[in-house]
């Protein structure tokens, strides 16, 4: 049987190689031209704890982590018990025979550590697993050997030894799987893309995008699942006039980047829900005093400490309206790892363009997943600079009712960046007319962020799907299936949520119904769309996990048929 799609879930205890096995399989596959995506979930503890990672390998680009599992690799008994029911009919379970035994007819044992040790390389357990998996779908041995060569050839004296022991481990895994008699089919040969590719995680993509746009100062505080951005910046945002720094709290992070933004540097921090809550007053100050900065919110489940290592899209209201008073933050919410890179650059550009705070919303499932993407042509992602004041002293920084050039400390045009309502000089007056003028000025600047680009498909349909952020992948896959089934539904997507591209808003308003899949209880985006005059209805989920494509297909189908029914009556 020919297979175009191969989904493997690795489950066990943290530290058993669950993540390295999945990422190894994904890397080996992309190396030879397949597409891959991994989805990871971790326990919130340093060592151990139940953890699992899913890798999906396809001949075509991967949009979601896959609903049904072809193979479960259970590193311990608890993992087997938790995940066995998700294995599809005809699927296979590989269990770690070094840890436990069992009699499930769908399973065979693999003594991963013993086999690895027999090669003289204790660290090759994940290669034993990858070899066995390759055998189940008849992936040629050469593919694996090319991967091992590429991964371990680093110019060390013992490279040959390491490479041969890893290959040996793969062969042992392969041999054991062959002896088990299980076969899933033949994975179709890859269609290697004719473009250059990158393999990376969402948080790495955001970091690269921001640095491309000229990020100069980063301050952050550790918090899952945003910490990896801080660590990336500490290593890579170095050099003359650049710095990344761990500060003492999220309050320090937001106020420090505010200071740097005021001083003229492109500045950013990244955090998760609890940090957004602590940053709310600082975000209000940046809005009020018109200071450019970027906050990345890598969402996790909330409220309070919530679900630190699970995915959710429940911060949208909190990010759009984080502060007291009249504010509405610009929001960019990328829908894939590829879009994370573009969004990182856009967020910096937006902050400079309208001189204020911008929030980039990602989420745990994108932050931690590894995915192959086309390497973007950076010359096509523009870099924008702030409009700065270069005249003489005596300038009024807040003059007028629209954006005005911003003076930089050290140069002419000294003023007070004021978090109290202010007059044109930045002083605090008692006059209502100033509050009216400045409020309108701050909101008028949002117009500068209105973009014209968005995704649209089957725009004649009276009902459309419009998801947001990281639910894009599963929703897109569901949309493709719905269209194949003949369901008349349209598709819209924009990573720019505030402001929405005006033409897109007009189109959405013209629909009889807009269906909004989103990972929260209240249907936050649907609610905001309704306040904008769109007839929106949410499909919600609050499990801490991404949507399953099959769930979306059936729920959209149901809503569409109810709607058609109602329209007929």
């Amino acid at each position, binding site marked *: 049987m020919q297979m175009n799609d191969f989904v493997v879930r690795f489950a066990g205890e943290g530290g058993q190689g669950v993540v390295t096995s999945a990422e190894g399989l994904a890397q080996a596959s*992309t*190396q030879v031209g397949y597409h891959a995506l991994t989805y990871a979930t971790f326990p919130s503890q340093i060592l151990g704890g139940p953890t699992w990672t899913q890798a999906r390998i396809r001949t075509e680009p991967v949009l979601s982590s896959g609903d049904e599992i072809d193979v479960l690799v259970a590193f311990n008994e608890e993992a087997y018990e938790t995940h066995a029911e998700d294995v599809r009919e005809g699927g296979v379970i590989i269990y770690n025979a070094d840890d436990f035994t069992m009699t499930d007819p769908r399973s065979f044992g693999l003594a991963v550590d013993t086999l690895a040790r027999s090669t003289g390389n204790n660290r090759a357990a994940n290669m034993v697993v990858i070899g066995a998996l390759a055998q189940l779908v008849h992936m040629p041995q050469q593919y694996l050997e090319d991967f091992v060569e*590429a991964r371990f050839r680093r110019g060390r004296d013992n490279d040959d030894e390491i490479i041969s022991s890893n290959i040996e481990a793969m062969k042992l895994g392969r041999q054991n799987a062959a002896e088990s008699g299980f076969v899933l089919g033949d994975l179709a040969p890859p269609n290697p893309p004719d473009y250059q*590719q*990158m*393999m990376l995680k969402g948080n*790495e993509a955001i970091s*690269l995008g921001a*640095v491309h746009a000229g990020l*100069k*100062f980063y*301050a952050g505080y550790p918090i899952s699942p945003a910490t990896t951005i801080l660590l990336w910046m500490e*290593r*890579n945002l*170095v*050099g*003359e006039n*650049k*710095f990344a*720094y761990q*500060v*003492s*709290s999220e*309050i*320090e992070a937001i*106020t*420090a*980047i*505010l*200071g*740097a933004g*005021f*001083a*003229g*540097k492109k*500045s950013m921090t990244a955090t998760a829900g609890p940090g957004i809550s602590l940053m709310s*007053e*600082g975000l*209000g*100050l940046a809005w009020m*005093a018109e200071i450019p900065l970027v906050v990345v919110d890598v969402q996790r489940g909330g409220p309070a400490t919530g679900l630190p290592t699970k995915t959710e899209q429940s911060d949208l209201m909190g990010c759009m309206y984080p502060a007291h008073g009249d504010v509405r933050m610009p929001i960019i919410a990328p829908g894939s790892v590829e879009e994370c890179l573009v969004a990182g650059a856009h967020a910096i550009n937006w902050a400079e363009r309208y001189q204020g705070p911008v929030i980039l919303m990602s989420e745990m499932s994108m932050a931690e997943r590894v995915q192959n993407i086309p*390497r973007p042509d*950076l010359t096509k992602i523009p870099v924008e600079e702030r409009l700065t004041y270069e005249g003489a*002293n005596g300038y009024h920084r807040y003059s007028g009712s629209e954006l005005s050039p911003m*003076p930089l*400390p*050290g*140069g*002419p045009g*000294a*003023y*007070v*960046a*004021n*978090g109290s309502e202010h007059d044109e*000089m930045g*002083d*605090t*007056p008692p006059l209502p007319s*100033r509050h009216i003028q400045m409020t309108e000025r701050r909101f008028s600047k949002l117009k500068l962020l209105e973009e014209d680009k968005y995704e649209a498909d089957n725009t004649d349909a009276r009902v459309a799907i419009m998801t947001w952020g990281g639910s894009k992948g599963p929703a897109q896959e569901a949309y493709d299936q719905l269209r194949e089934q003949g369901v008349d539904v349209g598709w819209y997507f924009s990573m720019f949520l505030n402001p929405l591209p005006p033409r897109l808003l007009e189109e959405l308003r013209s629909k009889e119904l807009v269906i909004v899949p989103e990972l929260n209880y209240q249907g936050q985006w649907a609610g905001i769309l309704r306040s904008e005059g769109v007839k929106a209805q949410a499909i919600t989920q609050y499990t801490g996990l991404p949507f399953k494509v099959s769930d979306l297909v059936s729920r959209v189908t149901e809503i569409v048929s109810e709607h058609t029914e109602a329209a007929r009556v």
Partner: protein
Amino acid sequence: MSKKNPEYDFKWCPGCGDFGVRRALEFAMINRLEETGLPIENNVVVAGIGCSGNLVHLLEGEQPYGIHGIHGRTLPVAMGIKMARPELNVVVVAGDGDFLSIGGEHIAPQAARNVNLTAVIMDNGVYGLTKGQSSPTTEMGAITSSTPFGKIEEDLDPLELYLTLGVSYIASGFSGQPRVLAKLINEGMNHDGMAMIHIQSPCVTYNDTFQLIKGNAREGIAPALWDIPEDHDPSDKRAAEELVRQGGLPVGVIYKDESRQSLDGNMNIIRSKARERSMDQLMDAYTF
């Protein structure tokens, strides 16, 4: 109404200590201009919220840059400015409520980093702008609008706190002596590290301590104010601790540690250790 802006209507009470501190900061910025030739725009004044924070709008003469932000966060804002633009002279102005109560959590990390900034704290032992509530430096037992039956917390000694937290320059003074204060502020600006100038700046409306500070011979009140003797060695931490324990209001430099590297210097050490990579090289690390 300020001299430069007729629309601005904030006023300190007549006789407020903060007038003297404003004069002192104006003197210090002019001295710095004369010493370094750097324009007044090279100074950034980061103001807290409260009566004292309004100093940033009331400065006369050539104007520095300023941020009048949110309550309690002067220090991390100042740190961000300094890290982004080390060539700027960054000054914090705040009161005891802003700096020691809501903002207290930021003193220890900034002291540990030895951020190269100068903090001018106007301590009046009360929340003035909100009309007379108790602050960390209000005396225990004091009756205020928020402690109608007496304050039940020990009053904080800020000078001991700064010493304990490792602030590398600590001076103390009185708002009634702007020329003396200006010198202490200038020395703080020239100090390569975190400088605290803690000033008793009485609130004439809610906590008028002028007489206690200056003394009144006719009423038999001895002055709390005393000059730090010339033989005090500010580099001696033990001597500084003993000096602070003597109480009253010492005027002068209490402690000065010039052996430590400031954050500016430590940032450069990091830069010398890390390898800078081009955008292409960063992208290449993920490309296959």
